[in-house]
């Protein structure tokens, strides 16, 4: 560990903030994020331009939503339901001390990934990262970044309805869950048995995996992927199948 290595080099005043980033963030303190990270996650985070609509209209970070700092508390109802949504705040220079109160407030609503864009809009411009002019969104919109192999709810529903011959639905819920109803044409293999029953699955069809919440379907996706030779995607969403009724999707 780093502190022990520094000791060996002769440093005499070594401290360790052992609780680290999670504790720092839980206390509502500011964490800075790099423009490179924001650019890479573009479209899958909540980017708040706290300079207000007038400044934002002149130019803003692509995809940002303009909110007034003083109105922030009133905007609470339009924040995403997903408390793990990355929320990035910025102003012209993003002086973190000016943004501390905003970070504390949003964190106190339960959001665990509130961060401040280091260098602010000026730093963003200096690196020639993508910006927009004119109309700016004033309502928050958030979609989480899809996991590798994820299929959209719309496409899943389409497959369930139309039974394309090049796709096969694989239901990896356990036998008890499946006894309440199974999708038409679906093959059922409980997830814990999947690895041992791979030879029951075709390699010339795309296998669309579902469970009840997406958790086991994703594991199934990794099992097929690690086995090699299978084409597969999975539904990362909650569904319920009761008798003849399918309820989907919640995302």
């Amino acid at each position, binding site marked *: 560990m780093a502190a022990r290595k520094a000791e060996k080099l002769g440093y005499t005043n*070594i401290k360790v903030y052992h609780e680290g980033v999670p504790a*720092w963030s839980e206390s509502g303190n500011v964490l800075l994020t790099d423009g490179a990270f924001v650019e890479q996650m573009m479209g899958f985070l909540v980017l708040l331009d706290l300079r207000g609509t007038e400044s934002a209209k002149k130019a803003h970070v692509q995809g940002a939503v303009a909110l007034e700092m003083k109105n922030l508390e009133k905007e609470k109802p339009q924040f995403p339901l997903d408390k793990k949504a990355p929320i990035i705040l910025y102003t012209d220079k993003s002086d973190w001390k000016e943004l501390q109160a905003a970070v504390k407030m949003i964190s106190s609503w339960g959001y665990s990934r509130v961060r401040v864009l280091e260098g602010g809009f000026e730093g963003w411009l200096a690196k020639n990262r993508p910006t927009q002019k004119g109309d700016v969104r004033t309502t928050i919109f958030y979609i989480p970044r899809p996991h590798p192999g994820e299929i959209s709810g719309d496409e899943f529903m389409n497959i369930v309805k139309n039974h394309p011959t090049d796709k096969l639905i694989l239901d990896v819920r*356990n036998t008890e869950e499946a006894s309440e109803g199974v999708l*038409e044409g679906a093959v059922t293999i409980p997830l*814990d048995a999947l*690895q041992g029953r791979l030879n029951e699955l075709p390699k010339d069809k795309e296998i669309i995996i579902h469970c009840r919440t997406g958790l086991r379907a994703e594991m199934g996706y990794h*099992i097929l992927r*690690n086995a090699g030779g299978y084409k597969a995607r999975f539904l990362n969403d909650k569904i319920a199948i009761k008798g003849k009724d399918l309820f989907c999707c919640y995302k």
Partner: protein
Amino acid sequence: MKKTRFYLSIGLGLAAAVLLGVSGPALAAENGKALWGPNCLSCHNYDPSTQLIMGDFQSYSRQANLLTVKIGPKPQVIKVTDQTKLENATSYRDLTGDNALKIAFEEKPDGFHARTVTVKPKLKVPENQLVSTKEMEKLVALGPEKGKFTLLDSRPAYRFQEERIPGAVNQPLPNFDKLTNLLPADKGQMVIFYCQGFT
């Protein structure tokens, strides 16, 4: 939030799947190094004489008794049974993505079976070296210059890029020896290290 309600009639007989391509489960044991995550390999040397999976916790399913371990871009799914020993944690459900796992396993026809799942324990730090969040808040508000300290983030670069404490400099632990220039010239000056917590 979009909610689509949809009715479906479910036939009694399941359509028989076309059973093609009978291939055994191609397990990854022939390349044991592929079962060690890149973060683990930055500190541990790969040892081919052991059968270990090393990586970060990703997910656990109670219904299926399966554990997903993140190993670079290829997560592995491992069975945990009543015989599996869990060390340094009371339940798989308490684990998060910040937990690094070391798993001793057996390879069976139906997949990897974990013998022991060891959660990376908290490192011990001498009491007099510990800094609390309250003390950190004061120091960070002063800044490294006024506060006369160097704040070093030992996590990998991608983590640092995603989030860091104001005033921190990134010195990923595996590169410590190459990055000693980030330490102050004055060996008596305060140096503070932090990471993702307790590691």
